[in-house]
């Protein structure tokens, strides 16, 4: 078989067929990019929005609950959520812009792989301090809604339970964030890594 002739025939037949699309830039802009990095950046902004809404909610609860322990916990929660927002915003700003898609294939794939790795690491770190703080704050609020908090906190068992929850939740949150990242982007990361290795590999 003459490969060049077959290729020419493919170009004239198989690849030439298809709907004729009337292109319009306005249409292109209506559908935001589906690139994983663009999605991650969009999701980060949405998460920051939610974190700010929750922080405002905690401020309202802070005003409604005069108990000092609850106020301390809510204060820590507010600070933790705001810290997560600032941390994420700082990371978003410090990430180099994604390379122009007209750059060489190898450098674009490396940049995508490295940025995705940085992003997933960031989410694991944020999970490491947001979830344990939320557990203690939520736990105290839950106890306060059922019984008198002062009485409850005099029982050592309550402190043990809270302490144990933090000890269990902290690594669990880290593991959960890592697992979710793997589920969402593991195959994609592997796919890019494989392509980088294949392109770099000397025959």
């Amino acid at each position, binding site marked *: 078989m003459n*490969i060049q002739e*077959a290729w020419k025939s493919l170009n004239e037949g198989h690849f030439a067929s298809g709907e004729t699309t009337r292109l*319009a830039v306005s249409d292109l802009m209506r559908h935001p990019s589906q690139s994983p990095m663009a999605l991650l950046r969009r999701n980060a902004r949405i998460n920051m929005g939610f974190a700010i809404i929750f922080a405002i909610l905690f401020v309202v609860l802070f005003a409604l609950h005069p108990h000092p322990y609850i106020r301390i916990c809510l204060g820590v929660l507010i600070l933790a959520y705001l810290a997560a927002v600032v941390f994420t915003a700082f990371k978003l700003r410090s990430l180099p812009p994604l390379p122009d*898609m*007209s750059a060489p*294939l190898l450098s674009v794939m490396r940049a995508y792989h490295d940025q995705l790795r940085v992003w997933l690491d960031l989410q694991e770190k944020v999970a490491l301090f947001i979830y344990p703080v939320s557990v203690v704050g939520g736990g105290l609020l839950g106890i306060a809604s059922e019984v008198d908090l002062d009485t409850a906190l005099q029982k050592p068992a309550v402190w043990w339970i809270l302490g144990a929850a933090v000890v269990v939740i902290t690594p669990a949150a880290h593991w959960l964030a890592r697992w979710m990242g793997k589920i969402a982007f593991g195959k994609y990361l592997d796919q*890019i890594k494989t392509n980088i290795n*294949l392109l770099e590999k*000397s025959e």
Partner: protein
Amino acid sequence: MLTPEHIFLQQVEANIGIIRKIVHLYVEHPDDRRDLQQEILYQAWKAFPGFQGLSKFSTWLYRISLNTVLTFRKRESRSTTAPLEAVGPDVAAPDDNPSDNAERLYHAIRQLKETDRALILLHLDGFGNDEIADIAGLSANHVAVKLHRIKTELTKRLNA
């Protein structure tokens, strides 16, 4: 006077075959093809202000399309490459009919690894080793060795 938008659309419409070809060689599912074509056009429009005409528009569009396809996240529930068993008999069937040969070549290329597909596609479309090296970010020697291996593999598949 033509606006950048008009120039871009004219150029893309004149070279739409490049996008169509790459989309067909990399994804199987019609929805994936539509998404990928959309993403390539989006990335091309975003990068267009940086196009200074130092290379041909078609070469620039190849870079954009291949980069987009290699960093595109395929949906896992959809098949992206036809399984070997499904295309095996067609690939193996000896026939001198040009359209059958084209079909066999199409399936054989689709069975190559993603990066190999990019290199052979550029080679078959007439790019020299230096140009391919520039697009891929490799040395010309490296490309020559890779192309030799890919062509041997392709011939083996076509003659199987």
